């Protein structure tokens, strides 16, 4: 109940006399910021005209770019998650000297420029261990595995960040109780911690998958922008813009925008349900 206060148009906000002078400017700023983003997104439609914007997506080169992006993003996000789960759990639970250094190092791919990350990877494959890997295991430079590797680093850093918060939200007492009920540390992790943090795991995968899908700088530096070979969606947008194929570029941009909206919606649904909780 808000009486004697007045309820504003927004649910959950109680305005007391005089609050309007603060609330309405803040509210206007929020709407203005959202309008700016929406205007930029809407400007894509201006270039499409009355034609079906998604007709270009059916063309073979564009479809190939979409499938390559989906494949590399899924592989990179999956591999990143596989390594991020134990790493994030360690960061969330361990109290050891040097933990903050590990934490900071794992954050670097998020902070550094994607171009710098790609260049670092390229330079690595010029070192003796990198050359040995290229010669004996797998080719990464200017190849599809290079895209996955560059995206993997982005996915790993992002997943560690999201998962660490999720594991920290899992009550450590639940794990302790599970141990006294007969679980080994592995069983407690697999049967208690991971299921409680499952929404955080899903959120980490979705976020890192979306980040990989939209990556341009890191992948293009290591794997190049080779049409029909290492042409992901962002590379395709770049190449089509360079060759003044605006329709194709904008269709791909609309597709990525749509995917971004879906991802953000999914993340908000997961967050509303709670990534991890306590009893």
């Amino acid at each position, binding site marked *: 109940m808000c009486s004697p206060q007045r309820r504003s148009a927004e649910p959950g906000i109680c305005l007391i006399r005089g609050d309007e002078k603060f609330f309405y400017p803040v509210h206007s700023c929020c709407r203005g910021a959202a309008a700016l983003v929406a205007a930029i997104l809407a400007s894509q439609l201006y270039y499409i005209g009355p034609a079906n914007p998604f007709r270009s997506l059916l063309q073979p080169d564009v479809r190939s770019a979409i499938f390559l992006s989906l494949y590399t993003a899924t592989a990179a996000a999956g591999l990143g998650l596989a390594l991020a789960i134990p790493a994030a759990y360690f960061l969330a639970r361990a109290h050891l000297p040097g933990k903050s250094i590990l934490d900071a190092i794992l954050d670097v791919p998020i902070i550094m420029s994607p171009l710098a990350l790609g260049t670092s990877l390229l330079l690595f494959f010029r070192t003796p261990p990198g050359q040995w890997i290229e010669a004996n295991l797998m080719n990464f430079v200017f190849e599809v595995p290079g895209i996955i590797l560059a995206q993997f680093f982005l996915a790993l850093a992002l997943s560690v960040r999201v998962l660490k918060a999720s594991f920290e939200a899992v*009550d450590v*007492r*639940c794990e*302790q*109780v*599970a*141990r*006294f*009920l*007969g*679980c*080994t540390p592995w*069983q407690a992790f697999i*049967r*208690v911690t991971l*299921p*409680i943090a*499952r929404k955080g795991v899903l959120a980490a995968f979705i976020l890192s998958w979306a980040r990989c899908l939209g990556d341009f700088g890191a992948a293009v530096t290591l794997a190049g922008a080779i049409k029909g070979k290492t042409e992901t969606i962002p590379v395709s947008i770049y190449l089509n813009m360079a060759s003044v194929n605006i329709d194709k570029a904008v269709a791909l941009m609309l597709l990525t925008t749509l995917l971004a909206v879906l991802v953000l919606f999914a993340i908000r649904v997961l967050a509303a349900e709670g990534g*991890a*909780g*306590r*009893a």
Partner: protein
Amino acid sequence: MIKIENLSARFGSFWLRDISLNIKRGDFFLLLGPTGAGKSLLLETILGIKKPDAGRILLDGQDITTLPPEQRDIAYVPQDLGLFPNMSPLENILFGARIQKIDSETIRRRLDYLTEHLNLGPVISRPSIFTLSGGEKQRIAFARAIITKPRVLFLDEPFSALDSYIKREVQFQLKRLQKTIDLTIFHVTHDQEEAFLMADYMAVMIDGEIKQHDRPEQCYRAPANETVASFLLMQNIFDADVLSVDHESSCVTCTANGIRFEITNHNRLKVGSSVKLGIRPEEILFLTPGKPFKPELRHNTFRMRVEALYNLGSRRLVRLVFADSGRTLDATVHYRIGRRFELTEGGETYIHLRPQSFCLLSGHTSSQAVSDEHVAGDYKP
């Protein structure tokens, strides 16, 4: 059953010092102490969650000091219960039984028993633990811990978040169940009422040390020292000197701040020795105004001024001042008695302190203390 030998552990600047305890099978053992005394740290050290620096923990003769939790065959209910939020109440209860691969017939039998004795019927079929009340969650946590039939159940202030009327009911249920299935329980709390209600044996822990380990009634009547006495709300403590000893009547006359007390001598006190005397507020007897005193009340009867009256619900706390010395004394009386004796702030009254109501505190263990009988409440001269 559980034997803790000279356990010491350091956590930052806090020390658990040389803790030794012995708990028998089937006992409801209670570790009582104020907040910050180190109770939960001791519990976690015994459980193996924290590492001791010295000492060892024996369970049925087996040294479990370094054994991993899953091999100890004990159960633990933490303060926040640690219920698994992604599981239903039934899945929570059955979790340990399934991990330990207990056969389904045994699980069903135990579940039926616990459902009946912990009144789980209305809650066991709920889809989520988030729809449960505090008391229901509590009972689910107990059932989950007990269904695996652990050798000892460790409880860390499990009732602290419950409303008092729900708390009392769950406490009764747990106590009944513990007696019925002969379960050994190690329970940590700062709640004195809970401690005296549930414990078969208790230890009082203050500043990382066990100050007294005894039956609850003994801890209540005869605290081992001044620290324990103060914690157990024995507010009236006097530093006194022994003036004379009457070997015939086993009575000792002491003086404190010019006030002469006669106390029962169970400790063979000598003339000239210094003692610390304690008397509980509820042991102070008010005398009916205007009536002559009985001869046996010629000693330890004092004229007092009522300095303040405090309402404690069903009781009144009366802060009294000795008319001659100015020394204060706290007494508690039932509110009806307070009315009958017409106690008013600034007024006068007479009290009597029975010689056997005193206990000796300083330098004496609980078994040496003098109080031999607890009689509280009304007293007519």
